[in-house]
């Protein structure tokens, strides 16, 4: 058990060390640019996983909070100057917490519904948010969009600050995921996911953990939205609050494996890189969508539960072989039973000798 955990921590350390060192290798801008987008999705998929994976509430409305973050940072800096270029990043925690607070009443209402209905309710919220962004012109600029100051970073290292901030966010998202998995929060979320009514009836803090998962999840998403807006420089309602963003996040999480620590990250690295690569190299030729869809379908067919769970299942089976071979029985030190009519016994009765301590 201990050694397994050690491996897990080592894995995480190596992963983040490699990612942190990558830019030092003087990577080309286009590579860093691709990694910036990949990290964005990795953070969002991890965040979504807290709610959609662990709690079993498949939100399709996360893009609304992405938009909340994007608009928050854009509108704030329409009235406040950007000098060093890092100001928007300092605002991130505020945006995250703000989005979480905005999310609280929404969660309280929306989470009265379950599974598919919850999915539809949240996607509905997304469209409502989008409509508001379009129509509250005086605040958002409506369809005309809104611009944020161009980051005053030098062209040579333009992507670095974004990359670093996103890496920190990913560490936070994965750290929170990990912490929840090994605490009773994770246990309670799993119970909620399996059978919420029963969980409520046996004293699980259903409401508390649900709301917690929702708020953390949307808070992280909003922070990514803010970074995105700053990076792209200009936002319109249809792109800042885009159902396709949610769909991409969900696809990544499912592909990598729901309710796992690494699944969403792996999913994001595969799908976002595939998307960026195919869209660029095959984009002109219409085959891009086909290639992208096939990557996804093939992985899903080979690993129907997503990558990480499929691998875990295989490992588990190997471990289980040992477990099942242990004896099951009613009796403790049972004496051999003599059948009254021995002639009718078709098989000699020899109870397995075992002691209580044998049980694993």
């Amino acid at each position: 058990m201990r050694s397994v955990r050690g491996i897990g921590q080592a894995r995480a350390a190596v992963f983040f060390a490699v990612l942190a060192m990558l830019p030092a290798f003087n990577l080309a801008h286009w590579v860093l640019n691709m990694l910036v987008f990949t990290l964005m999705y990795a953070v969002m998929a991890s965040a979504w996983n807290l709610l959609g994976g662990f709690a079993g509430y498949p939100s399709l409305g996360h893009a609304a909070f992405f938009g909340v973050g994007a608009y928050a940072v854009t509108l704030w800096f329409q009235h406040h100057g950007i000098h060093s270029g890092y100001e928007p990043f300092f605002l991130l925690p505020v945006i995250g917490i703000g989005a979480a607070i905005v999310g609280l009443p929404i969660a309280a209402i929306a989470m009265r519904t379950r599974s598919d209905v919850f999915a539809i309710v949240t996607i509905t919220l997304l469209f409502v948010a989008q409509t508001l962004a379009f129509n509250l012109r005086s605040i958002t600029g409506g369809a005309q969009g809104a611009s944020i100051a161009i980051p005053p970073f030098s062209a040579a290292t333009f992507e670095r600050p974004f990359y670093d901030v996103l890496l920190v966010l990913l560490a936070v998202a994965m750290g929170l995921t990990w912490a929840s998995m090994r605490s009773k929060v994770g246990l309670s979320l799993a119970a909620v996911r399996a059978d919420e009514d029963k969980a409520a009836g046996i004293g699980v803090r259903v409401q508390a953990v649900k709301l917690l998962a929702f708020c953390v999840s949307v808070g992280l998403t909003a922070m990514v939205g803010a970074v995105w807006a700053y990076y792209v420089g200009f936002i319109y309602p249809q792109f800042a609050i885009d159902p396709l963003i949610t769909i991409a996040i969900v696809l990544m999480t499912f592909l990598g494996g729901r309710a796992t620590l690494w699944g969403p990250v792996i999913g994001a690295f595969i799908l976002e890189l595939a998307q960026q690569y195919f869209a660029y190299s095959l984009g002109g030729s219409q085959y891009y969508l086909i290639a992208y869809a096939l990557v996804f379908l093939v992985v899903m067919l080979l690993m129907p539960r997503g990558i990480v769970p499929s691998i875990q299942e295989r490992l588990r089976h190997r471990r289980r072989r040992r477990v099942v071979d242990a004896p099951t029985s009613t009796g403790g030190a049972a004496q051999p039973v003599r059948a009254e009519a021995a002639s009718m016994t078709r098989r000699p009765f020899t109870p397995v000798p075992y002691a209580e301590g044998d049980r694993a």
Partner: protein
Amino acid sequence: ASKGGGSATGPSGGAPGKALVIGASVSLTGDFSDSGKAVQRGYQLWADTMNAKGGILGRKVQLKIVNDASSPSQVVTNYQNLINKDHVDLTFGPFSTLLTIPASQVAKRYGYAFLAPAGGGPKVFAQKLNNFFFVQPAPTTQSGDVFAAYILSLPADQRPKTAAYAELDDPFAAPIAENIRQKFEAAGIKTVYKQVYPSETADLSPVMGAIAAKHPDVIVGGTQNQDAYGQIKSLVQLKFSPKFMFQSNGANSPLEYPDKVGRANTEGVISAADWFPGSTAAGSADFTAVYIKKYGGTAQSVDDSSAEAYATGQLIEAVAAKTHKIDNATIISSLHSGSWPTLLGNLSWSSDGAPNGEFNLVQWQKGKLVPIYPASVSQATPEAPKPNWGG
């Protein structure tokens, strides 16, 4: 290691004989795909023409066109890749108009000139990027002003009394109609109905139904593509035909428009265009000829988006001819001074990249799109009032 950083002259200062690679991201899928493809045709046609002439300054022109699927993230990635991965020499703009801003910022970062044949909304110019040039005669939102000028030039008894406005909520549609409305209202044309509709509106029947109920003399549509078709279809079904029907966009698409609304229903519809068949502007005849040769059809079937794209190339050609250089810095500094002839007419820009010219008014007459105003370009008399729908 990254080469593109800051040194725009690096890759473009290459020796003659090495191909001149021009990169562009356009929307080949999604809502803007019709126009996106027209842009692609224009770029390609110009490149072919140049190569037939032996290239620019002895360098063959090679295009690299990628798809952005209408996503701002993808457009950023695309220009990053074009500039830093493929090290293209020059960049042309996207068609997906909403994507121009993020794309122009990337180009600016690496010192690339950014010539965009589409996407000239006010916010683009508000960025005040000196590398940006909008290759049309006027900023998009002013493209309908010529319609207002025409209507107000009519004698009082022919002038419409009431107007209805149906505007797509899009930075490049609604403002055009709004500009017209201001001019109309100032001239005493009563607004009986005004409606902005969101871009996902699949069904324009409720809006057009409300307009039909008001019987306005003129309908001004601030439109893109789909909704322009939808407006006409609904009006036909509602059997209401106004005296003047103006649509800022969509109706100026010679191939798609009759196909989508039915040829019989195009008669009399007015739109704005910068290029029109039979234009006498610089290179227009050549362009028309090679277009027909390559893609078939008639001069009527040429989309003005193709012409705008072609004009983008013409500018490069003109700068090269004048300066004998073909790097980004030269292009930027050259275009900022003087006036440059293209098939859209002579173009010149303010420092923010906004062009200083005017559009032309075109009308559908007997299945053809002909220029009717201003008099300098007019090839036919305006058909007014518009006849009834063909059904």
